[in-house]
């Protein structure tokens, strides 16, 4: 199945429209589920689909479908029908125009994934479970996929890319009256992870959760966020503020602040699609070249991210979700980073703890998400380590960690030295001032 040929067929059906774009994607996925320490499901998914967008007379419409014999023509017809019902929009911008790649092709293809069955994944899942012992692994998921995408449009864009991805999510618990649950996630393009390391982290995390006691009272303190929790808090605050659509709509708190200080001067933030990561590649899902861009330099805002709908594309228009390739043809294009990296600092995590007088080193939050409009957060602390005078003195849970993240980014106390790759970030631990912990 040649995706570019399918795109050509769709575009041929739309020759009379002013502009047309076809996006085709195919993925071949194996997913291994672990329940109660044993592999319970082995799943194979063969997924393929297409999305077509049409612009004609200032009107735009789109249609998407799984791939069948008549899909290109069907999508073209339905997209035209949708466009014909759309009101005229004088501000519509062109789809991507052909441009050379700006980053070298990253190393994102692992033939062990693209050419083999599930056996390697099953072995890896079982090795992780074994390495976590005596903690048990009540739930685990290991997913690996070969993903092929192609974008073509009537402006002459014609790009195709292949990559592999591995996503893992494992939980761990030691038995007791109040066990708690540790978590470890895996994001990679390669089957290169060390099961012993992942397993031992699961064991440590499970024991920390089991030792945690309910936090009582409330206090102001510093918070140290590890990469696992900082990823979503970064994307929902900084990622949202850097989103060009939010800027255009006036709801980015950083609108109009280019060249000004928006975070602490010890922070520099780069979007790097050229390094291996789950969305790494030379082109985004609109066929615009991606580029390594410094978005915040020493705390100063350098620019925003755009797709073709909202401005001159910076190669940040995505349909794909990094952790799961299935169904991306059904997703609309949205602005986002490929691989948002916080440039690491010099302190180890131990040094960061030693430099904290009164704080909480977060191990795990229920759902580490910030309100993207207001920056406010109130997050259930599932496990954290209280710091007094530079030392961990207790492990706590059952509390809310609250604050305002845009202010917190302005009051960073330290940036850690060890980055960890997430789904679309690459961040170190960061220490912030001004959080509040609320318990019973």
């Amino acid at each position, binding site marked *: 199945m040649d995706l570019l040929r399918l795109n050509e067929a769709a575009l041929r059906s739309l020759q009379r429209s002013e502009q047309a774009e076809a996006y085709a994607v195919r993925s071949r996925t194996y997913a291994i*589920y672990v329940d*109660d320490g*044993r*592999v*319970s*499901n*082995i*799943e*194979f*998914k*063969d*997924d393929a689909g297409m999305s077509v967008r049409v612009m004609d007379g200032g009107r735009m*419409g*789109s*249609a998407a*479908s*799984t*791939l*069948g014999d008549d899909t290109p023509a*069907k999508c073209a017809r339905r997209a035209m029908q*949708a*466009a014909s*019902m*759309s009101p005229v*929009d004088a*501000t519509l911008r062109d789809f991507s125009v052909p441009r050379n790649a700006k980053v070298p092709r990253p190393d994102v293809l692992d033939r062990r994934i693209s050419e083999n*069955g599930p056996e390697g994944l099953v072995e890896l899942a079982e090795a992780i479970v074994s390495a976590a012992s005596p903690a048990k692994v*009540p*739930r685990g998921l290991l997913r690996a996929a070969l993903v092929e995408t192609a974008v073509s449009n009537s402006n002459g864009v014609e790009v195709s890319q292949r990559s592999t991805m591995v996503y893992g*999510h494992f939980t761990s*618990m030691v038995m007791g009256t*109040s*066990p*708690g*649950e540790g978590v470890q996630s895996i994001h990679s393009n390669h089957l290169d992870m060390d099961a012993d390391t992942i397993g031992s982290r699961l064991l440590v995390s499970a024991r920390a959760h089991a030792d945690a006691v309910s936090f009582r009272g*409330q206090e102001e303190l510093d918070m140290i966020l590890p990469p696992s929790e900082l990823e979503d808090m970064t994307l929902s605050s900084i990622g949202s503020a850097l989103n060009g659509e939010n800027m255009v*709509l*006036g*709801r980015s*708190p950083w609108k109009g602040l280019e060249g000004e200080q928006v975070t602490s001067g010890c922070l520099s933030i780069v979007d790097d699609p050229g390094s291996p990561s789950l969305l790494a590649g030379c082109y985004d899902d609109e066929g615009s070249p991606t580029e390594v861009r410094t978005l915040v330099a020493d705390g100063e805002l350098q620019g925003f991210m755009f797709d073709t709908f909202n401005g001159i594309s910076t190669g940040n228009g995505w349909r794909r979700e990094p952790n*799961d390739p299935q169904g991306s043809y*059904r997703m*609309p294009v949205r602005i986002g980073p490929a691989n948002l990296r916080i440039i690491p600092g010099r302190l180890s995590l131990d040094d960061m703890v030693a430099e904290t007088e009164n704080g909480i080193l977060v191990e795990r939050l229920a*759902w580490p998400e910030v*309100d993207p*409009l*207001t920056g*406010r957060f*109130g*997050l*259930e602390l*599932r496990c954290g380590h209280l710091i007094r005078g530079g030392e961990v003195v207790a492990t706590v*849970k*059952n*509390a*809310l*960690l*609250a604050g305002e993240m845009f202010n917190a980014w302005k009051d960073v106390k330290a940036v850690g030295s060890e980055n960890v790759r997430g789904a679309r970030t690459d961040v170190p631990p960061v220490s912030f001032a001004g959080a509040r912990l*609320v318990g*019973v």
Partner: protein
Amino acid sequence: MMRDEMAVSIGVLVDAGADFCDIQLQSIEGLTVRSINGRLRDLEDRSAEGLRIRVWKGGRWGYASSVQVDKASLRRCCDEAMRNVRGDRPSVSMNAPVNVGDHRVRVGLDPSKVPLDEKVAAVLDLDGAQRMDGVLNRIASYSEETKSNILLNSAGTDVSWNEVRTRFRAMSVAADGPRVERYYDGPDGCRGFELVKDTDIEALGRRTAKEALAALKATAAPSGHLTVISDPMVTGLLAHEVIGHAAEADEVVKGRSFLSGKVGKTVASPLVSLADDGSVPYAHGSVPFDDEGSPSGRTDIIRDGVYSGYINDLVTANAMGVTPSGNGRAQDFGRRTWVRMTNTFIEPGGSSLDEIVAETKDGILCDKMVNGMEDPVGGGFEAKVLRGFIIKDGEVKGQVRSFTLTGQALEILRTVDMVGDRLELDGGMCGKGIEDWVNVSSGGPYLRSRIIVGGG
């Protein structure tokens, strides 16, 4: 044609040694129309078709799914599912009740029969109705989805059904200098386009805009262990996150749920009764059959404060020796089928909202949820609330901005001392962990309890 091929394949899989197997054929037709500030942002027509095969053998599922829906693909998926099924532990024998029939939902106005321009006009009208000084973003959206399913299994089940859902929603973002707040509202359910026709679009848009503007004047919520009156939406979030996820029997079977072994024990105030019911007419989470072909039904989870039962799929029902409750669900043909909620709610009691407020000396009244997160292992939860109102000496006072609720589920349910007299359900999407999204609703009455409140 495909149905006949599916039946043949079931026989092939059984002959090849499957202890149990099923095949689902699913098609999904959907539309999203979304506008921002009068500009059409998304006009998307979506369709998908695929098949999914599951084979149970040796205590393990082998799955295969494909978007190629033909005889050759069916054969390839059978081979792949059999290849994936090698098991390594004693197998629960799969006794699946046999269901046969065709269930077509009837909606007032079939969305596929309504012209697209009428849907676009409704969205732009809802967008325009939010126009008000101080409103920065007017967002309006309409979405529809029709799922059609055929499912056959090796026990003899042969069912087909469809599901129709629509949603019509307004969201206003208001700004005053650097301060930005929002409000949303709008109906949803297993209904057709009558959902939009029955909506007073102008009133919905204006109300949404006004409430977003009012949020700009709200103060910070208090923090601490407080008396909380949850509205039906937040009560539903508590039902869903606090108890619902931990009542999923797969978590119980593997000892991951704090509700393991609680049947027959008092776990809540006697005022609390909680159920999951996939057969509530028109509710967003209703399904005629689950994705294993079991008919949906009602499961009493807590009755008068006493824990009653768990929700099940085929595997957990067989492991526990009970009848499947119709809760084996999947996001779509390409995703895992496992125990999931449908419509989860706390039953109404006997107090009016006015009575609950009048009886509250110091507290906070919640209004609308943002989202939540479960903790089946630790028994905690997180529930984000869009806004609230301070209650002082039995009267509603000033508005407070978004905040979060947390605490230990069973401790909270034991503190419930007043339950409202009217049940409302609100539709949404539920993930298990952080993915596998299915349509659900949750709800309940106004409910008074003691919960940890913190800034959000």
